[in-house]
């Protein structure tokens, strides 16, 4: 069984290679090759999963050593895979949701003439993400990490003829680069501290290293996670990444990319456990992002950007949970999986709505679509209920546990975190209800427009993945919760401790449900009871700031772009005046000197003869003088 692990990465990688190098011959059928190879990876993952279930908990982790990559005496880099429970969870999520998104894309990208290339990139994305989660050392993980960055760049900028898409792709790539630098530094630090960067030696010896070094490693890992998972302060790329085709957004937000940061923190749990300061920073980042994303999500009229804000906020929940230590890791991953289902479903639903509405994304031009798109409405609605944590659906179980764990952190910190997560739950309910009401209920605001759309249900290839994901959104959480099966499944990898919450579980659950209902009610008062204006009202100061991503881009502009620009200008000035001045000045001096020296060469033999005689006379005189002295 071990020898099959490499194939999990190999299938999509093969697909990417064939599709990208295959040329025009694959134009007609290539996309099905992409779907089949993604599916093959999922089937193989499922086979390995059932094989793993048959073993006892201690024997479940599988290893495969493929080859030595850089064998230098004390620097051993291997291409080796590790398939344990945590990696298995990710493999199933990535390949499962990824395959559904592949199938959906067949319909969604039907009229795009570069569809073959699109599927090549999708396969590359899956391959990179699988490499990331299957690697058994940080260096190979870094390869996958960069691969994910590359694939996201290619996909976000897929419609590169639109300048906005090209710019968004560059932005995502550059912001991610900051995080990548963090990961690289973390790996350097690991190598100097532990003499290795494989998971086993680093994580099992983590407690022996000094706390200062561990804190440094932890903070660098957090920086990396912030970049990939769009956490404050590196979150600015996520909203713009909506320029890519909608299946890409679904893939980035549900199965790949943004989950990588949470994976990294959970995988490096042993380091964070031994570095409480780093853990505190992780929790703070998670809590800030949770509220930040939620507030941004409330103000956006673009359906995809509202969902992007929501992703940021939900990943904030996961990072917060991962920062809580062994009481939170399992819940972070559980929320990640359930979020994978409902967020993919929501994005595919949004894509389906856009498909029927001439690619309109402004929710103020939607309204009353439930009659025209019944399947989309029901699946989107189930995803909506799951994300706001409606009792019984998957989001309810996973989010409720994170809120409980936040309270269980203990002390003032626990109360603050608990309050933040509850507030986040209320805002989540508010903005998702807003999306729901503006899109599927109310007046049909798209009527009477210049280019009036004819809303219609999407083809089967698009609705079937949405239906499957809706099932996941409804049942996954409950399944994981039965007998705490998910927590027990992950326990050998992530450890687990029961948190002791100052509030009893039913009280927390009750509070969660009440805050959720308050959020829903507030949204209904504003968008359900009253008609939604087709043009956005000016709004309060906060609304206007939130529409601009809470001024994050402006802050980046003032804090980073402008100083960079001035630095560049200064350097250009120094280059022009000082460096070029020195070089050009030297050249001019030599030029002038040469011009004058040239006059000596006047072409008259006799004047040369004078020089010769003069020189000889000087030599003789000098010799005689030396003699005399």
């Amino acid at each position, binding site marked *: 069984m071990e020898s099959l692990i490499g194939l999990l990465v190999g299938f999509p990688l093969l697909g990417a290679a064939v599709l990208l190098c295959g040329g025009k011959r694959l134009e007609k059928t290539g996309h099905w090759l992409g779907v089949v190879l993604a599916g093959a990876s999922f089937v193989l993952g499922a086979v390995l999963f059932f094989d793993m279930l048959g073993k006892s908990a201690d024997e479940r982790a599988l290893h495969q050593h493929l080859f030595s990559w850089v064998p230098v005496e004390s620097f051993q880099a291997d291409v080796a895979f590790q398939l344990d429970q945590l990696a298995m969870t990710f493999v199933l999520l990535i390949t499962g949701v990824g395959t559904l998104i592949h199938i959906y894309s067949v319909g969604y990208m039907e009229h795009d003439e570069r569809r073959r290339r699109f599927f090549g990139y999708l396969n590359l994305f899956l391959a990179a993400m699988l490499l990331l989660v299957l690697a058994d050392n940080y260096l190979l993980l870094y390869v996958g990490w960069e691969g994910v960055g590359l694939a996201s760049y290619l996909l976000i900028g897929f419609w590169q003829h639109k300048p906005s898409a090209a710019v968004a792709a560059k932005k995502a790539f550059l912001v991610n680069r900051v995080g990548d630098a963090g990961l690289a530094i973390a790996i350097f630090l690991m190598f100097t501290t532990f003499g290795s960067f494989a998971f086993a030696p680093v994580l099992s010896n983590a407690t022996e290293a000094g706390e200062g070094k561990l804190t440094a490693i932890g903070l660098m890992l957090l920086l990396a996670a912030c970049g990939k998972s769009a956490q404050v302060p590196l979150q600015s790329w996520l909203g713009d990444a909506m320029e890519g085709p909608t299946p890409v957004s679904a893939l980035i937000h549900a199965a790949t990319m943004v989950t990588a940061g949470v994976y990294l923190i959970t995988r490096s749990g042993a380091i964070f456990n031994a570095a409480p300061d780093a853990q505190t920073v992780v929790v703070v980042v998670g809590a800030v992002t949770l509220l930040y994303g939620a507030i941004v999500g409330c103000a956006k009229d673009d359906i995809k950007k509202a969902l992007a804000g929501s992703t940021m906020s939900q990943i904030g929940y996961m990072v917060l949970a991962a920062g809580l230590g062994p009481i939170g890791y399992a819940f972070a991953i559980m929320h990640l999986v359930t979020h994978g289902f409902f967020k993919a479903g929501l994005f595919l639903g949004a894509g389906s709505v856009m498909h029927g509405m001439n690619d309109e994304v402004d929710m103020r031009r939607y309204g009353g679509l439930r009659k025209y798109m019944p399947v989309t409405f029901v699946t989107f609605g189930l995803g909506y209920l799951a994300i706001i944590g409606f009792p019984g659906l998957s989001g309810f179980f996973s989010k409720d546990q994170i809120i409980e764990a936040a309270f269980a952190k203990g002390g003032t910190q626990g109360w603050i975190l608990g309050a933040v997560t509850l507030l986040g739950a209320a805002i989540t309910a508010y903005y998702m209800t807003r999306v729901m009401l503006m899109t599927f209920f109310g007046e049909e605001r798209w009527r009477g427009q210049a280019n009036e759309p004819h809303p219609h249900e999407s083809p089967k290839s698009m609705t079937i993945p949405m239906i499957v994901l809706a099932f996941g959104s409804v049942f996954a959480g409950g399944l994981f919760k039965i007998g705490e099966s998910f927590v027990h499944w992950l326990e050998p990898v992530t450890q687990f401790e029961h948190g002791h919450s100052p509030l009893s579980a039913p009280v927390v659950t009750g509070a969660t449900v009440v805050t959720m209902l308050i959020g829903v009610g507030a949204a209904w008062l504003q968008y359900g009871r009253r008609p939604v204006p087709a043009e956005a009202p000016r709004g309060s100061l906060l609304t206007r700031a939130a529409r601009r991503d809470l001024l994050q881009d402006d802050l980046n502009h003032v804090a980073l772009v402008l100083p960079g620009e001035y630095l560049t200008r200064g350097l250009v000035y120094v280059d022009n005046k000082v460096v070029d001045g020195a070089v050009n000045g030297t050249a001019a001096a030599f030029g002038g000197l040469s011009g004058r020296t*040239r006059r000596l*060469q*006047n072409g008259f*033999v*006799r004047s040369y003869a004078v020089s010769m005689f003069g020189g000889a006379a000087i030599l003789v005189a000098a010799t005689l003088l030396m003699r005399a002295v």
Partner: protein
Amino acid sequence: MSPVNYVYLAALLFTIGAVGVLIRRNAIVVFMCVELMLNAANLTLVAFSRIHGNLDGQIMAFFVMVVAAAEVVVGLAIIVMLYRSRHSASVDDASLMKL
């Protein structure tokens, strides 16, 4: 007669040759002045040979004569070619190499 007088004569001859090289334009005269300088040097060698009482200087004078003969052949050939191409034997006319 003291052999030192030969050295004075050589100095005189050398000066005449040097001044001739510097002030005359005709290539043949310049060339003759060069020969004069060479012979002045020869005379010095022989004179010092006599003063010091050994034969080194006289042997050196033979070498110089041989080299001077070879030099005359090459020099005259150059002057002939110069005259053919420029229809003049003036050294100031042969200034094609200056910028």
